[in-house]
């Protein structure tokens, strides 16, 4: 398997022991492998173990009971091979009574990753420890059964909620199974969401337009100051262009949009990202664009300042809204409306999604959403069905 390491010269830079530098996008390699006994004999565990033969390995009954290093950098140097507890297929975490949800589900085979972002930090070192769910057969059986039970509905199944699915795929090779798996499904589209440029191993896989590879995008200045172990904006867009050329649908996620000054400054900054995005990837290859503004738990700033002392993401006008901290609605609406209108010049409304907002907010930006039939279609993903890329 070939792994694209853009900016290979950067990977050659001497790495400070323990922490990955902001621009370190070299493939992740753990310094310690922990395998749960119930996962040890599974084919994927054996294959990963074999590829990490020289890494010290422990087999434990329950990784959740292990003492975790308090230092997240140390925790991040481990890799746990485990199995899913409970259901692997979950409702989109943004779905709640207050939000007008995009109606997607989430399926993650990795938890945590070598990537670290100031706006999405784990609460504890335990959550920072990369883990892979290697009971892939059971997980795929669960997904197949769910899709068969709901064959009248159409599902978008997202990844990237708990960890970047491609950041460690050179070790796990999950995508090589998942993409053909979803290619055989009639009522689902799988989304592989990443901040890396590791896509070369995906290009010749049979996907039948049932996998969308998507990129979380941000302004390059935000990527530089707030994200570690990721590809640059240009590298992500180059990778997106590559998968689009290979016939994959491409998704983009402009989230979190950061508004540190006026909404106008933010729309100008993110407007440039949109321009670059539309230049890099033909609009016919774009399956959807999601956007959302920064929102976070009230305890995030204290945690973020420890890991990212120079972070500037909390400098904007942020107020408590429900249980979260976010920009006031009038700021969110002003920014989203400008970006939505800009995107709508190149993409139809049904390809544009707004994350974590009420139908009221969404309706001020895209009035068509207030139409009940449109709402129904969106919730059932019916508009996504005739994929036109």
């Amino acid at each position, binding site marked *: 398997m070939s792994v694209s390491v853009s900016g290979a010269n950067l990977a050659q830079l001497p790495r400070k022991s323990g922490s990955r530098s902001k621009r370190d996008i070299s493939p992740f390699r753990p310094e310690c492998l922990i395998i749960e006994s119930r996962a040890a004999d599974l084919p994927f565990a054996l294959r990963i173990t074999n590829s990490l033969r020289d890494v010290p390995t422990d087999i434990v009954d329950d990784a959740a009971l292990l003492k975790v290093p308090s230092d997240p950098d140390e925790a991040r140097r481990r890799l746990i091979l485990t199995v899913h507890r409970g259901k692997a297929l979950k409702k989109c975490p943004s779905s709640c009574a207050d939000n007008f949800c995009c109606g997607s589900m989430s399926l993650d085979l990795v938890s945590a990753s070598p990537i670290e972002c100031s706006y999405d930090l784990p609460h504890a070192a335990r959550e920072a420890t990369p883990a892979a769910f290697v009971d892939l057969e059971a997980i795929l059986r669960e997904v197949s059964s769910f899709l068969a039970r709901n064959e009248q509905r159409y599902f978008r199944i997202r990844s990237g909620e708990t960890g970047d699915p491609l950041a460690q795929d050179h070790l796990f090779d999950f995508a090589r199974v998942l993409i053909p798996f979803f290619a055989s499904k009639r009522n689902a589209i799988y989304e592989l969401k990443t901040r890396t440029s590791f896509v070369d191993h995906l290009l010749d896989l049979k996907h039948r337009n049932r996998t969308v590879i998507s990129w979380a995008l941000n302004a390059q200045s935000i990527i530089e100051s707030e994200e570690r172990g990721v590809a640059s904006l240009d590298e992500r867009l180059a990778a997106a262009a590559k998968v689009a050329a290979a016939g994959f649908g491409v998704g983009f996620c402009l989230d979190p949009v950061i508004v*540190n000054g006026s909404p106008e400054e933010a729309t100008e900054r993110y407007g440039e990202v949109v321009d670059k995005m539309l230049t890099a990837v033909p609009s016919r290859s774009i399956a959807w664009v999601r956007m959302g503004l920064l929102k976070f738990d009230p305890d995030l700033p204290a945690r973020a300042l420890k890991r990212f002392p120079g972070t500037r993401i*909390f*400098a904007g006008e942020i*107020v*408590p*809204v429900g249980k979260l901290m976010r920009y*006031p609605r*009038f700021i969110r609406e002003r920014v989203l409306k400008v970006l939505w209108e800009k995107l709508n010049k190149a993409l139809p409304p049904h390809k544009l999604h707004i994350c974590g907002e009420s139908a009221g907010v969404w309706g001020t930006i895209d009035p068509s959403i207030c139409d009940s039939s449109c709402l129904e279609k969106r919730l059932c993903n019916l508009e996504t069905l005739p994929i036109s890329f």
Partner: protein
Amino acid sequence: MLLQYLPLSNINIADDSYRITFAPRLEELKRSIRAVGVIQPINVRHTPENTYQVVTGYKRVLAMQELGRQSVPALVHEPNDLSPTQAFLWNLHDNAATRELNIVEKSHALSKLSQFYSVSEEELVKQFLPLLGEEPSYKTLHQLMSLSQLTEPLKNHVVMCDVALSSASRIAEFSPATQQELLPVLTQIRPSSAKLNELLTLIREISARDAVSVEEILQRYQILQVVADPGTTPTDKVRALRQALRGVRLPQLSERQRQLASLIDNLDLPDSARLVADPYFENDKIKLECQFSHPEEIGDLIKKIQEAFTKQQWHQIFEWYRA
């Protein structure tokens, strides 16, 4: 152990090895000693260097000194009879069992246990926080330990003004120089802990956003002048300070709130009715609140509200709100 009347001059009062007391209030104790003398002997540890360390009874020693007494009844322990760890635990239990320690004293106790007696964080949380009357949580432990970063004047302020632990630990996050700058502001106001936390957070956030020192913020926005007006009540000082800082930290939101307040002011609503909007404009519903003490007042109130409703400004508010 030997009971003896120990000359005060033999006691090394500067040796604070086992001391946790901070800002002691001695008046009541002095009154008691004046009336009946020292009832309970103090405990001292005789060191190999032939000095006497106070183990328990620091306040009694201070009171006796201030009263000009020459000696104090003391149980003298030889070094072999009482280890430093035992001596510290005696002091801690003696204080914790007989009075409410202030947060600086609790901080001193925990810091010493950690620094000099190598007590683990887990033991501090599980064993010593309950002894000090605190919830056994790591957050509380870290907040209390952080108070060691307070300057002496700030420690005094925290104790004298009974500043809450959450606020004191936020003050401790500032550098000693910044704490000195903040002190004149803090001494002018008596906010609730929630308000004080908000004010401190606003100051810190403005400082981080604009990359300027807290000292510069205090000067640039004339914060000291805002709170120094002797004709203003402490509550109004806090309100003015909060308004000034929020205006700097949240300029767009503050401007919008000011505009709405102005539109509402232009309405001719009766005094007993008021319009309340979501302070962050998240919800576009506006609430009308009315107060009345007799059922007969309702009709009159509704009539006045209806009269006000016919005015154009009502529509302006909704148009402005949804714009």
